[in-house]
C-alpha cells in the first residue's frame, strides 16, 4: 500500500516539474484575455 502511494507521489512530482517547465516554455497566454474580458 505504501508503495502505491509513493508511486502516486512520484507521478505528482513529475507533473509538478512539468507544470513549472510549462510556465517557462508556454506561459499563460489566456490570462490577459480573461483580464480584459472582465
Amino acid at each position, binding site marked *: *500500500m505504501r508503495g*502505491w*502511494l*509513493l508511486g*502516486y*507521489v*512520484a*507521478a*505528482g*512530482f*513529475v*507533473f*509538478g*516539474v*512539468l*507544470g*513549472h*517547465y510549462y*510556465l*517557462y*516554455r508556454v*506561459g*499563460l*497566454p489566456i*490570462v*490577459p484575455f480573461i*483580464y*480584459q474580458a472582465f
Partner: protein
Amino acid sequence: MVDWRSRLRALAVGAAVGFGGCSVAGHLVPETMEPFTRFHFFVSPDTDYYPTVRSAWNMALGRADRNKTMVIVGGSSVLYGIGQVSGKSFADFLGRELGDRYIVINLAMRGGDVVGMAMFIAEALKANGYDVVYMADVFASGLNPLGENPHYTYMYWQYRTETFYQPWGPREAYADRQAFTEKQFAQRLNAVLRFNNLWNYLGYKYFFTVFSRYAPQFWRPRDQYADNEHDWPPGGNYVNINRSASLAIVNSMAKAPTESEWEQVTASWLETVPDSLKPTTFLVLCRKTPYVTKLMSPEAQAELAGIYAEAPLRGSRVGMHAVDPCRDFDADDYVDTTHLSSLGAQKFAREMAPMIKMLGGGK
C-alpha cells in the same frame, strides 16, 4: 487497494513538492552568463534563449571593480559587432584603447536599442556605487522607454521584479499606461515562481530543452556554444548588398526632423535614459557606409549631414553626449550598409576612447 482520496492526495502532494521545489531552486540557482563575450547567436532569442536580467547582472557584478570605470555597451547590432569576430569587435578594441582602468562589457543586442539589458545593468551598477559609462546607438528618431523590439520587452518587466531594479519615474509612468500583456503577467509570476531563472540556468549550464533548428545539437548547454560572429573575408563586404534597396533606406533617413519633431525626439531621449545615467551616457550616431551614401544626390547628402551635425546639440540639451564618431570612415570600414568591419570597429574605438576618458572616469 488504496482509495481514490488517498491517491489524489498523494498526487497533489507530489505535484506541490515538484512544482514548489522547482520554484525554490529557481530562486537559489547561481545564474551567470560566463563565459560571456556578447549576446551572440546562441545566447539570444534568435535561438530561443531568452537571457534573464539576473544572469546578466550576476555576470556584470562578477566582473565589476569599484576601482575601475565600467563601460557598458548597449544598443543594436552596430555596437554588438556584426561583421566583427570575437577579439576584434568594437568592444574589444575599446577595452584595449581605454586600458586597464576600464572594464568594457558588451551587452548590445542585434535588433536592440538604447533601452534594454545593457541600460538596466548600467543604471543598477551606477546605483550600487560603481563608476559607469553607458553607450548605445541611435538615429534622429524617438525612443520607446520600454525598448522598441517586442522580443526584448520581457527584459523590462523582468528587471522591474528584481531586487537590483532602479525605478525611473517617466519610464514607469509610461509602462503603467501600457495595456496589460502576457509578458508583463508572466514576469510578475516569474518573480515568485522563478521558472525562467531555473530553466534558463539549466539550459545554460547543463542541457537545453527547447528545439531550435538554428542551434546544432540543440540540447547542448548554451555555455558550450562559441561566439560565432566572423570577420568578412577580404572583398567579402557588399557582396550581397542590394544597392537600390540600401539607397532607398539612406534616402529615407535624409529627411531632417522639423523643430517640433526634434522636440518629440529629444523628449523621448529625456524620458528614456534615467537622470542618474544621463551625464555619462553616449548616444552614438554611426553613419551609413559611403559605399551607399555617395550614391545619394548632393541635396540628400547635405540633408543627412545636417542631421548628424544637429543631433549632438540636441543630445547636449537633454544632458547626454550625442556623438558622431564615424564621420570620416570609408567603404572598407563597413561590411554592409550599416555594420562596421573590424577595421572600422578599431577606428570607432579610437574615436570613442578619448571621449570616454574626458568624462574623468578611469579611477
